[in-house]
């Protein structure tokens, strides 16, 4: 039994490790500095009454983009309105867009199943069931839209996390107001640009949503990889605590395959 079992186990372990190495080396560029944004202000081309225009999504997303760009992050794409497209976040084209950067930010309408664009390719909704992110490069997806990460449907978003890929995503449990300043404030907290002590990615989203929105009936949220003690269930490692590359303790390695099924979700009232 030993003679058969151990070589077999060794082969399996080696094969597993090799496949991990191929995925990481072949896809993730490893530099963790590219950023990209997409935002929709003009939903009129859709001609759907219940998807009205928004005034502030451009300022919201570009605020985040500009603050990080000024801090040395590499701007890769800045797509608004008709230049933005649901396919950029879905499996069909994400390798050239969202999954071709390390941090992507979307601002626009959203609901519990996805976020909305002004194009029809084919249905103006970047839906969770069409996404697999992080299999190439993306580490974090930041969504400034209503109800993406809604409490009752939070676990469906785990399906977009590619193996060894996406570290986490942010969003809202409830609605959110059309704010122009959330993105820049978030970037300030991520980088300590304004003199405030550096925050982790999770705490930066928490601080920014609380300070910017200041409405106790609105709940923001985060969903990220985590590791728990398999016996006690105590949280031992949480990507919520990651910091931006080059800041503080920086980024963590891509999620350990041992814990690939473990996630952490938190929501909070956005009140100062």
């Amino acid at each position, binding site marked *: 039994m030993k003679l058969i079992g151990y070589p077999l186990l060794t082969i399996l372990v080696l094969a597993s490790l090799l496949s991990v190495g191929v995925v990481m080396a072949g896809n993730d560029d490893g530099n963790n500095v590219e950023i990209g944004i997409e935002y929709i202000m003009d939903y009129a081309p859709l001609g759907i009454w*219940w998807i009205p225009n928004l005034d502030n999504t451009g300022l919201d997303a570009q605020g985040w983009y500009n603050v990080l760009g000024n801090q040395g992050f590499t701007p890769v794409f800045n797509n608004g309105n008709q230049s933005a497209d649901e396919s950029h976040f879905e499996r069909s084209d994400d390798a050239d867009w969202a999954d071709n950067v390390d941090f992507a930010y979307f601002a626009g309408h959203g609901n519990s199943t996805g976020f909305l664009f002004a194009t029809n390719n084919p249905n103006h909704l970047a839906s969770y069931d069409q996404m697999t992110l992080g299999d190439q490069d993306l580490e974090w997806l930041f969504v400034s839209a209503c109800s993406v990460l809604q409490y009752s449907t939070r676990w469906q978003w785990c399906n977009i996390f590619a193996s060894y890929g996406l570290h986490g995503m942010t969003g809202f449990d409830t609605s959110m107001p059309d704010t122009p300043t959330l993105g820049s404030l978030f970037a300030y907290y991520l980088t300590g640009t304004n003199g405030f002590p550096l925050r982790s990615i*999770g705490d930066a989203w928490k601080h920014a949503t609380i300070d910017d929105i200041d409405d106790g009936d609105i709940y923001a949220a985060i969903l990220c990889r985590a590791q728990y003690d398999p016996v006690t*269930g105590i949280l031992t490692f949480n990507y919520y605590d990651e910091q931006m590359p080059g800041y503080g303790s920086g980024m963590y390695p891509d999620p350990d395959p041992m814990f690939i099924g473990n996630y952490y979700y938190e929501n909070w009232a956005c009140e100062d």
Partner: protein
Amino acid sequence: MASKKIIFVSIASIVIVCTISLWLGNFSINGTLDYDLDYGYYKDGQGHASFNISETVVIWETRPELEALPELLIEKIPLDESIVQQVATSAPFKIHANMQFYQANWYDTIELGAYINDGKGYPLLGLFPSGAIRYYTPEWSGQNSFAPILPSEAEAKQIADNFLSEVQKSGAFFPTGEQQLVFSEVVPGSQSSDAWGNLYTNYWNVRYNVEYNGIPISGHYGVTVSVGAGGQVVAFNGNWRNLVPSGDNVNITVTPQQALESCPPPVIRGTPVSFISMTVQDVKLVYSCDVGILHDLDSLSVVYEFSVMLTDTNGRQIPLVLYAGATA
């Protein structure tokens, strides 16, 4: 003082009945709506939604005689590191070891504070020239605890009351006199998932509203004490200001009808709901703080507070409070 109260009571007692027809098109509401109305937002199966007003009919049965309110200025408080140190080391905060000072430069104001420089930067205490204050501990960061045992809501309220009493003695600005805290509610402030995906509450948010001479201050104004495991205060936001009356009154230049007609529908990044009628049941003048603590502000504004009842096509009624500016 007495005359102001009389004015307020008279304003508050005026009942206005009006009907606004809201019509968006020939669409029906599909399925059962779970009305969870907050600040003008609906929540249905697809998340929260707003409503739009495209055609409005207002019938004022009574025209209220709404009078001016005293103008309230926000007087800046000088801050320096010695003041921060005094407050940070006081009983409610107890920031002692390795204290590091910071000055954050926000949109048009500053924040002066202290924190423990241990990599994560907690606990942290920040003071603002406006009088606002905020405090965060490592436990506010949520994921540090596992299935915390929280005090009851009543216990949390008592803990928050005691904490605020300590803050009042800390040397930080604390609203007194005509500016009074009024307890509002205790709600879950944050929820986290455990290893099995179940959610638990990290801490309670004990909320207080603030009134000036009995007149509510709406908008970015209020107090939240977050009470976590073991009754520990894990965060505190004193979103108040150092208010000083100018001696003048704010001239009300907009009638309630004009204000309501110009009141924009809430804009959110979700989908709106149609077919709503609205009955305005009450209107009064209140103060409003129009920006958050990261912005500078010279004075509070005065707004109408409309208490309205929304009715959907199935006859279900939902209460709502709307605010609209009372000055041009």
